[in-house]
């Protein structure tokens, strides 16, 4: 346990070093969130009755998405891991007296958390100060906030577990570039990062909600905004936990299978 904690600490501290990059990122994300909100406002003004949620719920959703981007950025990969698989350095990693899956998992968690820590506060503060309905509002009550927190953690671990499956796939494909872009694209769409899931037609929504990808960012954010509440929220968290277990176990099995017949590249 101790060694994983040190991996976490090293990565976390390393991630905190890139402060200038984080500031640039904050400005970019702020512009991005602002333009997104203006876009939805145009749709809202064109047909408010077709809008699936309150406009203020949507702005809250978008600011949450921007502030917590690094937690759920699908394209944020640790290229060291891909490199170690393609270059053969994986041999050294295998010599270490610790579990490969856990080590990579912890490293990814640390990188994402340090990124979020640097970026989320400025975005939250500015977004909270904006006039209604363009601001981010607090969750409706304590229960909602608590559910959001549980769901956020589940979604975050699910996100990392899914990235793990993609890392492990590099054992089979060797060149990860194509796999990366394909999986990122599909998952972005299915997870509600392109447009929030409530905006899809009802039939499509039902399918999306059963797939694991909606459980990543969409579920916690919708719980926060109050769009999903009560029994629905509990059911959604149930789906999240189900997928978390399934993906975690399949990642474990995959890496076991891959390591059994691992081909180390190069000499």
């Amino acid at each position, binding site marked *: 346990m101790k060694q994983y904690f040190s991996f976490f600490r090293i990565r976390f501290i390393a991630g905190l070093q890139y402060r200038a990059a984080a500031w640039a990122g904050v400005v970019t994300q702020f512009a*991005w969130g602002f333009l997104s909100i203006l876009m939805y406002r145009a749709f809202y003004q064109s047909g408010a009755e077709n809008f699936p949620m309150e406009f203020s719920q949507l702005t809250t959703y978008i600011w949450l998405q921007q502030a917590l981007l690094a937690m759920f950025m699908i394209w944020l990969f640790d290229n060291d891991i891909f490199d170690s698989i393609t270059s053969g350095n994986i041999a050294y990693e295998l010599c270490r007296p610790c579990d490969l899956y856990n080590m990579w998992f912890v490293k990814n968690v640390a990188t994402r958390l340090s990124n979020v820590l640097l970026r989320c506060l400025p975005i939250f503060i500015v977004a909270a100060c904006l006039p209604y309905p363009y601001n981010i509002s607090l969750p409706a009550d304590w229960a909602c906030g608590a559910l959001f927190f549980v769901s956020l953690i589940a979604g975050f671990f699910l996100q990392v577990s899914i990235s793990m499956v993609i890392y492990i796939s590099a054992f089979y494909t060797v060149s990860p570039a*194509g*796999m990366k872009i394909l999986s990122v694209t599909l998952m972005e769409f299915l997870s509600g990062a392109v447009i929030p899931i409530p905006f899809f*037609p009802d039939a499509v929504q039902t399918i999306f909600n059963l797939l694991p990808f909606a459980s990543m960012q969409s579920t916690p954010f919708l719980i926060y905004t109050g769009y999903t509440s009560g029994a629905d929220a509990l059911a959604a968290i149930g789906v999240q936990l189900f997928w978390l277990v399934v993906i975690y176990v399949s990642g474990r099995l995959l890496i076991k299978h891959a390591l059994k017949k691992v081909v180390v590249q190069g000499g």
Partner: protein
Amino acid sequence: MKLYFKYIGILLKSQMQYKASFFMTILGQFLVSFTAFFGIYFMFDRFNQVDGYTFSEVLICFAAVLLSFSVAECFFRGFDTFPKLIKSGGLDRILLRPRGVIFQVLTSTIEFSRAGRFLQAAITLCYAIPTCGVVWTFDKIATLILMIAGGISVYLALFVLYAGISFFTIEGLEFMNVFTDGTREFGKYPLSIYGKGVLGFFTYVIPVALFQYYPFLYLVGKTERLWYIFLPLICAVFILPCYAFFAFGLSRYKSTGS
């Protein structure tokens, strides 16, 4: 020019070495834009129109922006790696060679895998042209061509500007992405839907609206002002200050050493 094609040939050959990955990347690029297309589709499925624009009208706009972006990206994105060239001192090597700096930067990378995005844009355009209800007279065709040409020149200018700024910051500037990737992303809808402020900014500061919005108005018949057709030509002029800035940066260039 002969040298340019030679460079292109070499780059194509080198990228074809990893065939599976190359084609998967093309497919991926294709899907990226495809999901953007579906994003628009589902939004219109729910709302039918935005600010008075219909689905097929928006598609023309989307395809024109995507097409110009993908062409500019394919051939001119060598400037994207420019900050790296400065950081590593690779620019010194380039300065020693008896060819223009811009020429060498352009030929350093050409991303053929961006063809996927280009393909997607071309398909969308082929779908949108007959269905958008525009009667394709000569002036409308000219408008569309000018829109795309203007778009390519704006993106080229932005890439040059990006490289010019990196002379002073050494680092790449993530914020510039708002103007390049951002206008591609948000430019799928006519810029007026974002409100007067945003439209004004993209008219007078970064002239994206000049090729994306005003000629588009003429194209779909929202305005009769003939001179809107020629506004994309101003986009070409936008290259001049960007290039001047780049040249200014180059003249002040101090090597980072090694």
